[in-house]
């Protein structure tokens, strides 16, 4: 996808988001009482309209004037992704699944069971590591290390499972 095609896709998606956002804000949030009471609706609504306006500006700039902004994501940000390959999108989806599954398992099985499952899955399935020393070291080291440091030493509550609890 070229830079200008990306900008058109971005501005159209965000324009749709701003339209839905503004409609939901107007539909669900009440206005203020008047006499200086700027109600809870004002800011989200104005921001939705501003976002829409900016997207239209970006669309005009890219589509009609044919200008593409500089090729950098921004000062010091996470590196701009040079090539959006299918592996990258696959990795993104897999990480999203891993985080969601970890949240679910944390709630149901607790930290001491959910964490080794996550680390094993990431190392063996996602990263396809085959060194059993690294896999065992990371899985047990991270789980027990975090548990001892956070829960036992610092007294920070790490989730106990609702199905069963060994922590």
């Amino acid at each position, binding site marked *: 996808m070229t*830079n200008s095609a*990306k900008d058109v896709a*971005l501005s159209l998606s*965000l324009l749709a988001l701003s339209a839905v*956002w503004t409609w*939901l*804000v107007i539909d*669900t949030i*009440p206005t*203020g009482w*008047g*006499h*200086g*009471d*700027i*109600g809870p609706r*004002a*800011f*989200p609504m104005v*921001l*939705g309209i*501003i*976002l829409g306006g*900016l*997207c239209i500006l*970006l669309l005009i*700039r890219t589509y009609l004037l044919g200008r593409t*902004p500089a*090729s*950098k*994501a*921004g*000062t*010091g*940000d*996470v590196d701009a*992704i040079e090539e959006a*390959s299918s*592996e*990258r999108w696959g*990795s*993104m989806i897999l*990480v*999203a699944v891993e*985080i*969601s599954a970890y*949240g679910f398992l*944390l709630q149901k099985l607790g*930290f001491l069971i959910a*964490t080794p499952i996550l680390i094993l899955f*990431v190392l063996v399935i*996602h990263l396809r590591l085959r060194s059993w020393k690294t896999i065992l070291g*990371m899985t047990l080291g*991270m789980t027990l290390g*975090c548990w001892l440091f*956070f829960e036992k030493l610092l007294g*920070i*509550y*790490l*989730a106990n499972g609702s199905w069963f609890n060994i922590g």
Partner: protein
Amino acid sequence: MDIFLQALASAMTPMAIASIGLGALIGLIFGSIPGLTFTVALALALPITFSMDPVPAIGLLLGTYIGGMTGGSVSAILLGIPGTPSAAATVLDGHPMTKQGNASIALGTAVIVSVFGGIFSLIVMIVSVDLVSRVAISFGPAEIFALVLFGLSTICGLCGGSLIKGLISGALGLMIMTVGLDTIDGVQRMTFGSVNMMQGVNLLVAMIGLFAVPFIIEAFAVKTSMPEKSQRISRVKAELPSIGLLGRNLWLMIKCSIMGTGIGAIPGTGGAIASFLAYDHAKRFSKKPETFGKGNIEGVVAPETANNAVTGGTLIPLLSLGIPGDPATAIVLAGLMIHGITPGPALFMNHAGEVYGMYVAVVLAYLWVLGLQLVGIRLFVHVLKIPRELLAVGVLVLCAIGAFSIRNSVFDIYSMGAIGVAAYVLVSFRVPITPIILGMVLGPTLENEFRTAMMLSMGDPEIFYSSPTVLVFFSLALLVIGLQAVSEFKAKKQPKNEVKADA
């Protein structure tokens, strides 16, 4: 003088020195792990102080506060994931320095300028506590709104290549923070009836998602698609910044210290605003603004000096008026009151010894932080020897723990994941993500202060142009936007001229 000597004696006991050191260590640990805030560290440290004498007790709390504020820069520089919102601006140039193999110089500079900023603000506080507190308290909702608007104008300097995309990013940040229960009217906004959504999006959760999740995705993607490219983040060497480097940035450090102290003295502001304003100032007045974002040391000096100068600034309204500037100083206030020290105008008459003891404790805390960090740098940089994908696995678990521990809610882990994936998509569409953080940091204050000001004036907008302070901040914001527009115009014109010259 006698009182000061007594205070010095009470603050220099082995118990007091050890408790300040313990506080600094706890703060450093909590500050450097994304999601574990020093506010949490202070809440955990508070019960430990119950059985202690006042000076060691307050020293422990101040040590935790100062250690936490400084510790945020460690993960910001090494991993590009800020430990605290105040360290978000440090990522911009600190992490590129790590990639260039200069992590130890960035870390060393960060801690030295932090100590400079902190001690500078303490001196300002001691000398001008009465004057500054009077000026700071004169800031009403309209003035704070104008200051925050000025802070938002720095988005222009963080846009990278495209002003429109930077503004889109800032607007998204502001929108995210409107989700949840409205703090003034108690109305649910965009919650879709979900109890979890009522608490809104936590700033720290969002910050972890924005910075850590794209790092994890990218590390895993590179390992699976291009294993030959998957390697350690950078060369590892442990060297400290030279005296010459610090000397060259002395004037910048002084300016950012003044900025941080001033902003810290205004309740409801904080380190994040100060550090972004200082970063923008450093970039604007630098001889090499084009190197910002690529590992310019000034981009580490400015935010780190300013966010630590905030610590002295926040103590001004805290001690002289009993007004805590942020949740962390509110816990320090609680600690003071538990030990029978009630801040306010009479504090300096009734508890002069304890107040002087606190001043000494702040200096000791900074010395502890300096010692611990300078020793720790040799250990911290070894993190970079770990293969990137294994480091990402550790970051994933630590960030999930951090997100969960903020409110003991699994919903925050889901939020972290969703925001992180959205950030990855935005970065792939070349949208800068730093303005989102700025929008999220400043959004709630901007809205609340605007609405409060309008309520106070019964809907009359005159409140925004009748105060000289408000007009000054509005003018500064316009100036920043104007300068950015001019520099963008020049930047666009330049390549065309070059093309003509080539022809």
